[in-house]
């Protein structure tokens, strides 16, 4: 159903000041209508009232989960953006309705309120869900663990408190999502705020201290059920993309790096004979490189790690996109058979060594690499930006880079892709784009109760 929705006209993209000290972060509005004279340009921008928030991921107040049969409330409008700052622990609620091109902040949830009511800090990802708005948090106000999930009321935006009742052995946290048809919550692991906010800690990494597991939860009873371990060499288990169809109990998760050979991987979790299991389905090797071209962090290895920092699954659950932020490669896989992904497309853009250019400006080496991906609901258009997280950008791309956004076109069968030569957008100088949300919904906002 959702795939027949109208084509998106606008995108919302969070912009951050990588220095965190010179100007406030912002919400940009990008024109996506190819017939418009301002196509592929920023047509509106709202600055935050504070400096140093580091806006990261954000989401809508409402989505298709509002139609779930056990608590249907179909008239909650998809209207407000819930925008957390990962460094400040502040959350802005923005209203897109009065003027979609100039979203307004209608409420600011101050960090103290989140600390007091949840004991969590560093809010990261938000999903609207059956009980309200769920927000993940990397850790506690002192920068330690555990990280977890807290809830906001999706009408008043009041902070309701922690989600977990029994967290079992779970300590590290990053992303979360669910299989609504199976009453199952899935969470992944990155690191506590202290392990990430000053950049990647090489000692902790080599000691295997970043997250290497996934957790399965009873969504209804808020109880930890099972820890799925990927192996001690797998470090940073990030973006979770469960199948959208609620009858399909499987999904994909990206792993940033393996300590064994700097490769990156995508794993598939699935329910078989009543047991949740996990296995590696895609592995992308590191690329050997001249140490002179590498940042200090990587010189000793003589290779560029692919660094899978984001993945995204089309709404029909057939096409998977993988961002290799280190090598500057963007990959497309046919996952009609999820156990055996088949590579169907590759595009190079940016990259630590390659610095691949865009067809629109072929003589301009690009910095950063494919990062936050968003797919239109019909699966025909894919957008991505190039910044990861300011302190990490600095380590892997020490010479700095401009923030840009691009668009790819995908044929109707979902196989193959090409960069739109008209779409290479530069954000305001000094600002970098992170997550993209499409007006009316996209492939990582909605979860469904009906197949």
């Amino acid at each position, binding site marked *: 159903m959702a795939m027949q929705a109208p084509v998106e006209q606008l995108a919302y993209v969070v912009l951050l000041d990588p220095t965190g000290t010179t100007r406030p972060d912002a919400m940009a509005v990008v024109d996506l209508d190819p017939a418009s004279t301002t196509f592929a340009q920023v047509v509106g921008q709202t600055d935050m009232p504070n400096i140093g928030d580091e806006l990261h991921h954000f989401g809508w107040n409402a989505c298709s989960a509002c139609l779930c*049969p*056990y608590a249907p409330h*179909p*008239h909650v409008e998809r209207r407000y953006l819930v925008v957390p700052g990962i460094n400040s622990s502040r959350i802005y609620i923005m209203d897109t309705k009065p003027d979609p091109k100039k979203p307004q902040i209608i409420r600011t949830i101050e960090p103290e309120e989140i600390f007091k009511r949840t004991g969590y800090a560093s809010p990261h990802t938000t999903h609207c869900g059956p009980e309200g708005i769920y927000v993940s948090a990397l850790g506690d106000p002192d920068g330690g663990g555990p990280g977890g999930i807290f809830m906001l009321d999706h*009408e008043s935006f009041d902070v309701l408190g922690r989600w977990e009742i029994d967290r079992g052995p779970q300590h590290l946290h990053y992303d979360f999502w669910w299989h609504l048809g*199976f009453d199952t919550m899935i969470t992944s692991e990155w690191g506590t705020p202290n392990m990430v906010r000053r950049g990647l800690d090489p000692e902790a990494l080599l000691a295997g201290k970043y997250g290497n597991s996934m957790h399965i939860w009873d969504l*209804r009873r808020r109880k930890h059920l099972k820890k799925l371990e990927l192996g001690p060499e797998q470090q940073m288990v990030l973006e979770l993309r469960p199948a959208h169809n609620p*009858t399909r109990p499987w999904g994909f998760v990206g792993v940033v790096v393996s300590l064994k050979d700097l490769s990156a991987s995508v794993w598939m979790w699935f329910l078989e004979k009543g047991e949740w299991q996990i296995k590696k389905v895609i592995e992308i090797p590191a690329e050997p490189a001249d140490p002179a071209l590498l940042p200090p962090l990587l010189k000793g290895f003589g290779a560029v790690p692919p660094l899978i920092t984001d993945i995204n699954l089309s709404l029909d659950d057939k096409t998977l996109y993988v961002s290799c932020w280190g090598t500057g490669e963007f990959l497309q896989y046919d996952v009609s058979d999820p156990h055996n992904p088949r590579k169907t497309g590759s595009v190079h853009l940016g990259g630590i060594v390659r610095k691949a250019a865009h067809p629109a400006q072929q003589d301009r080496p690009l910095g950063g690499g494919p990062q936050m991906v968003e797919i239109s609901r019909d699966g025909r258009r894919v957008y991505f930006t190039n910044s990861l997280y300011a302190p990490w950008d600095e380590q892997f791309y020490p010479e700095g880079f401009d923030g840009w956004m691009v668009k790819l076109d995908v044929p109707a069968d979902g196989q193959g892709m090409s960069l739109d030569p008209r779409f290479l957008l530069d954000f305001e100088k000094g600002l970098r784009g992170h997550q993209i949300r499409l007006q009316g919904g996209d492939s990582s906002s909605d979860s469904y109760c*009906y*197949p």
Partner: protein
Amino acid sequence: MSDLQAWLALLGLGAFHGINPGMGWLFAVALGLQEQRRSAVLRALLPIALGHALSIGAVVLILSLLQDQLPDAWLRWPVGVGLALFGLYKLFRSRHPRWVGMRVNFFDLTAWSFLMATAHGAGLMLAPVLLGWGRGMDHASHAAGQAAGGHDHAAMLRAAGEHAEHTTALAAAATTPLLGLAATAIHTLGYLLVMGLIAVIVYEKVGLAILRRAWFNLDVVWAVALVITGVVTLLL
């Protein structure tokens, strides 16, 4: 209000509750889609109807007990005003029901349906019928009704049939538990039939795409219905 009108009103309100997706048919369809079997739709209907009946039955019981003890106006005013205010509240702010769960057994479904019906004031919506029905009886027939409560259900209904014209006789009986049971049953019958019909038709033929086009704001209709029943209760 005549007996026939009262029974029809109960049946009709049952049908109205059955139409509301939030009262059950949508859950039944979703369970069918999740398991990809029609039998899952059908299996869900009975526990949902049972939960609804329990919620309605509780309200009927409480109202009839209060009716025994309190002067008519003492009951009508609070119930009527309460209903109208509840409806207005729902018009302006619909709270988010707190329930999560698609993996549900018979008991879960019954409990869910009971909660939904109770939280939406489904039983209270029957107040004008129940109170209007009981009106006009004097203390003597009231006592007679209580005596009649000792009879078995079938005899009760037989008696009701024989004295169909004598509204007051039946009105007296309306406060008895057995007739309350019959009222709950007839309401639930209307509810189950409409809910079951919609669930099977949507599952088999129409598909959920209909919701995109035809999911008019039933929450608003529901809230308005609450206000109207409140006002009717007052004007009886």
